[in-house]
């Protein structure tokens, strides 16, 4: 570890435009990365972790600027380079990959050309050689059928494949440093595991240093040698991965690690199991999408939900887990009939709801309410919060005044101030908005709440709070909860039983302990194996063992 650092950042300060909530996005930040090492920069949204990386890359968003500090790469201060000097560094000495593989590639350009562009940007090789290198790179990052993929447009590749293309591009010129800005956050857990493995392999092979930005301590445990924990633009803790994860010094780090869903149920099952009172019975639920074929192309049939059956008792939480495209969200939407299933039976409190008229559906619709994933998109930005929460009851005929008054009570119940009634959604943070979403769902006195990825967009500490709130409300109001999530750790924390979905079907269902402790289906095993930081011998595992 006595090796000279490849990149050393000292006392970095990034100034925000006037009128922002604070003066500096990043202040007094110092860290260094040695050859072949992985430094994880961890923090929640707004901690300044991405801002630090962008500053190093000279890609700060407009309005922000480096106010202070040095960033030495091979002895050259990056902050004092001009634009041309910086361009020579980008792509050649430092490669970068981003969070959203779906949008990080030019949709109109073939993948091969986009990789070849890296060589072109630095005036290297002939066009034919660039193409050959692009092909070799695609092969190296493990894209299937590279000869075909080189001609593919990004939309023809999956999220994981696009991220592989990004990695190929970032490593094309064998840079000394790879900056990976949340590169696996948008990916499914099994894809995430593959990408992390790929990054590690390539790093070992090329000796590249990696600056890995993430909010996920599980990923940190899997990949990092050293860790920098950031909060509100400042570094709060630095050290080796083992030290920071195993023996966190700062309260914030401790809180972050404690907030990681442990994978063990937190809520004890009711001491005296009452007679199971079934509130929801689903049998043979099926939804198929058919893409219209043309004269010459066959129609494609996608089974979004394929004869799904389960029942749910009062006070019970069912987790529905699976990767994107597994049909878990379609299932939720079929249940509340946002999309119309074509076959099956949905019985709420014993009454069949399939085949009912819209008027009849209204009766039971209030019994089953939904909380959505995106706390920013699911609240009408021009409505006051009180009105948003009261809208359901008002539509059901409750007088406006009564409904708004009740909305205030509900908002208090989900832990918001009573004054929230008169404010607008944009005045609230993501976690607070999700609380509003929950209050809205509760306003109609439902028996069943379906939460579709309700905490996926939230930071871990906020996630933990919202999960606690849901568990608490469930117990207090004796609700049945269907919790749809891609995050197995979250499911394990909050659910009584889980259903694992793959290609529209439930492949395995049972009590949480049983499914996760002794998975029977191969797909479940793969999902569990892919959870980052799961290894019990790793630093996080030891933390858990100690805390348990």
């Amino acid at each position, binding site marked *: 570890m006595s090796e000279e650092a490849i990149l050393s950042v000292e006392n970095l300060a990034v100034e925000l435009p006037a009128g922002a909530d604070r003066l500096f996005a990043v202040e007094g930040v110092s860290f260094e990365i040695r050859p072949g090492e992985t430094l994880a920069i961890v923090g929640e949204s707004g901690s300044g972790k991405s801002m630090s990386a962008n500053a190093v*890359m000279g*890609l700060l968003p407009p309005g922000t600027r480096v106010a202070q500090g040095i960033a030495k790469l091979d002895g050259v201060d990056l902050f004092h380079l001009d634009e041309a000097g910086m*361009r*020579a*560094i*980008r*792509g*050649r000495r430092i*490669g*970068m990959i*981003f969070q*959203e593989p779906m*949008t*990080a*590639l*030019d*949709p*109109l*350009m073939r993948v091969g050309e986009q990789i070849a*562009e*890296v060589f*072109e*940007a*630095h005036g290297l090789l002939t066009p034919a050689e660039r193409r050959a290198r692009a092909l070799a790179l695609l092969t190296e990052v493990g894209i299937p059928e590279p000869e075909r993929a080189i001609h593919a*447009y990004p*939309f*023809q590749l999956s999220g994981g494949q696009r991220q592989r293309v*990004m990695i190929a*591009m*970032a490593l094309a010129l064998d840079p000394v440093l790879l900056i990976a800005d949340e590169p696996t956050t948008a990916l499914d857990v099994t894809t995430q595991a593959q990408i992390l493995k790929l990054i590690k392999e390539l790093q070992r092979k090329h000796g590249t240093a990696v600056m890995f930005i993430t909010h996920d301590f599980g990923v940190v445990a899997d990949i990092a040698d050293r860790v920098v924990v950031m909060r509100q633009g400042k570094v709060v803790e630095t050290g080796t991965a083992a030290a920071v994860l195993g023996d966190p010094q700062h309260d914030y780090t401790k809180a972050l690690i404690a907030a990681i869903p442990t994978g063990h149920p937190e809520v004890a099952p009711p001491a005296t199991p009452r007679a199971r009172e079934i509130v929801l019975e689903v049998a043979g639920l099926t939804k198929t999408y058919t893409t219209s074929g*043309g*004269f*010459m192309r066959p129609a494609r049939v996608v089974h979004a939900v394929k004869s799904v059956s389960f029942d749910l008792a009062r006070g019970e939480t069912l987790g529905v887990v699976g990767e994107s495209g597994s049909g878990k969200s379609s299932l939720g939407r079929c249940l509340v009939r946002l999309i119309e299933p074509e076959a099956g039976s949905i019985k709420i409190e014993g009454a069949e709801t399939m085949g009912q008229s819209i008027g009849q559906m209204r009766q039971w619709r209030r019994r089953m309410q939904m909380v959505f994933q995106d706390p920013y998109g699911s609240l009408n930005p021009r409505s006051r919060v009180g009105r948003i929460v009261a809208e359901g009851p008002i539509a059901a005929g409750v007088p406006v005044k009564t409904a708004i008054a009740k909305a205030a009570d509900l908002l208090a119940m989900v832990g918001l101030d009573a004054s929230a009634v008169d404010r607008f959604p944009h005045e609230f943070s993501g976690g607070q908005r999700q609380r509003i979403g929950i209050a809205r769902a509760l306003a109609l006195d439902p028996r069943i709440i379906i939460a579709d990825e309700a905490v996926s967009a939230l930071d871990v500490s906020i996630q933990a709070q919202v999960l606690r709130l849901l568990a608490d409300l469930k117990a207090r109001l004796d609700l049945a909860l269907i919790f749809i999530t891609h995050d197995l750790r979250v499911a394990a924390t909050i659910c009584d039983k889980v259903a694992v979905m793959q290609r529209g079907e439930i492949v395995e269902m049972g009590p949480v302990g049983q499914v996760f402790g002794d998975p029977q289906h191969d797909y479940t095993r793969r999902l569990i194996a892919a959870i980052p930081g799961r290894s019990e011998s790793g630093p996080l595992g030891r933390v858990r063992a100690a805390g348990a």
Partner: protein
Amino acid sequence: MQTLWFLSSRLVKGILVVLAIVVLDFFLIHFAPGDPAAVMAGESGATDEIFLQQLRVKFGLDQPLMTQLGLYLWGVVRLDLGYSYRQQMPVLDLVMDRLPATLILTGAAFVFSLVIGVAAGAWAAANKDRPLDRAITTISLIFYATPLFWMALMSVLVFSVWLDWLPGFGFEEVGNTDNVFERVLDVSRHLVLPAVTLGLFFTAVYVRMTRSSMIETARMDFVKTARAKGLTEGVILRRHVLRNAVLPVVTLAGLQAGQMVGGAVMTETVFAWPGIGRLMYEALLQRDYNLLLGVFLVSAAMVVVFNILTDWVYRLVDPRIEVAR
């Protein structure tokens, strides 16, 4: 193969659209007050009912409307658009005679507006919020807000009457030589004022569209990726931003191409340009049913063809379309 299939399926739909428009136009024209017999009789000073009746029999106007429609459609299918009794010529010949002039005018105006509009829009976007950007957007707004006929008249006044740089009306000089080169040059000189006048209005729309689309595209993730590769701003702007930003402009241009045919009526009238726009105007004043229907049919067909072309171009510039169809 796929392109052929795409074009032929669009063509079939297009033909159906044109026929539907013909039927609609047919009824609209016949429901409007007055008919060609009345206009002709009025011009010859005879208001005698018998004479009117004779004229109506001669033109087939005495038959039930549905029969007239059936006869007309049967003719259209055989590419016979009827006979213009006013001009004493088959409608198809009249229209085909005038069509090239209109195609030249609208084509030139279209290319002018698109090239200038996209270029100016991209230039404005690259200089966002600087004086140059403000100047470009303001000027384009002025052109957009100015009525077409006024701009046409003013351009004749300034460039033709006062400065005497360009001819203010007509398609070419009378009694021109047979020299092809001289003739092209002559037509081009005549083309400048009408094409630019017609084009400027549409330019403004493209400027604004390109500008906002470029600014939006510049914020996208893949632009950041391009920067992270070490590409220069110029290459990023041309290769990544402009190409993506131009997609909505292509859609708009396809729609505008149809509108341009409408704009051509005004422009052709002011500049005495011998195209179908002016033909339409004349036919309208004379209640020349067959000719009017013929012009409508041809302009509808032009719009349909423009739309097919737009979709085709769109498929060329956006590879995603083929699948998402």
